[in-house]
């Protein structure tokens, strides 16, 4: 009954949503540009769906080396070695991976090296899988207890600004920093159709 009358509005809404989604799709690209600008060379990661676009950009890059890990703590150690060898890096992981890093995060304090990690969040916004909730709930506190400064981006339009601030303080001030990319930003993983 509303079909004809609402059609134009629906089209407009769908166009707006496509535009929003195009904008939303651009934040991994914005992160990639920031990493390039800061001369990031080593990019260790444990895959996460929220990082998939950025990981693809890194793997296709001629200046960055993507390094798949078996567990996230490997990435902390890798970046300490990279710094000794004169290169900057960034660790890409999901919130559950932060728990795997705890002891190795000691390196960020005792070496005072420019540690930056970008953490895609699970278990905090419309989560379907209860197994993600405990670690997702403690991610920020675990990082802070480990001496890492935590910044957060929850909306596509703030990602560039927040990641840039994180990169500046990590690389310019050797202040170990994590940027949490909210589940609200990434979207809840869909398990059922």
């Amino acid at each position: 009954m509303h079909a004809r009358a609402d059609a134009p509005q629906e089209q407009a809404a769908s166009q707006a949503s496509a535009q929003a989604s195009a904008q939303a799709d651009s934040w991994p690209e914005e992160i990639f540009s920031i990493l390039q600008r800061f001369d990031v060379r080593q990019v260790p990661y444990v895959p996460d769906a929220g990082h998939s676009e950025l990981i693809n950009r890194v793997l296709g890059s001629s200046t960055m080396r993507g390094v798949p890990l078996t567990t996230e703590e490997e990435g902390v150690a890798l970046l300490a070695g990279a710094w000794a060898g004169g290169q900057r890096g960034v660790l890409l992981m999901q919130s559950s991976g932060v728990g795997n890093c705890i002891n190795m995060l000691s390196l960020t304090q005792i070496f005072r090296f420019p540690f930056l990690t970008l953490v895609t969040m699970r278990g905090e916004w419309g989560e379907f899988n209860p197994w993600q909730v405990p670690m997702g709930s403690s991610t920020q506190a675990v990082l802070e207890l480990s001496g890492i400064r935590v910044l957060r981006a929850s909306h596509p339009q703030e990602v560039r600004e927040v990641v840039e601030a994180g990169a500046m303080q990590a690389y310019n001030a050797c202040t170990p920093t994590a940027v949490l990319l909210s589940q609200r930003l990434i979207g809840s993983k869909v398990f059922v159709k």
Partner: protein
Amino acid sequence: MSKVNLLDRRAVVSGLLANRKDAIVVGGLGASTYDMAAAGDHDRNFYLWGAMGGAVMIGLGVALAQPNLPVVVITGDGEMLMGMGSLATVGLQKPANLTIVVLDNESYGETGGQVSHTAATADLVGVARACGISDTRAMTTMAEVEAFAPALQDVASGPRFASVKIDGANLERVLSSRDANYIVNRIRGALGFQPI
């Protein structure tokens, strides 16, 4: 205490590093770091006093950043067991300038000599090979160690993995600096990098 025919760890490390040239050497926490210090302090020595399970990954980070320099990781069996996944990561990256040497006394010497998995079942050389590191070896004599030492300088055909069975003697600790910031900045300085 020492079994016959097992090698002396200090002799092994001194033999490997006698002609190290520009190599950057990472030592796993505990006795491996003391062995490196005993062989002689060096501004390219990356002593670890913690980060158990991280020695190979630290070596990989240096090796990827400095592909023209030899990078050597010297660590113990317990430390290597904790970071076994890193052998899969190295196998994938195939850094041609990285050599990993495990000093295997089949025990956790620093904590009272409790036996490790390599005493009975775990075969680290087999693990390394199965992870894609094709140049692997188990060494049991000083002649083999001395013949292997020049390979550490080769930055074109790694990664290499070697396990050396050593005796379980608890030697006097030779303490290196334990100030991580000093250690890393000394290496960076030797490579020509300035402090921030």
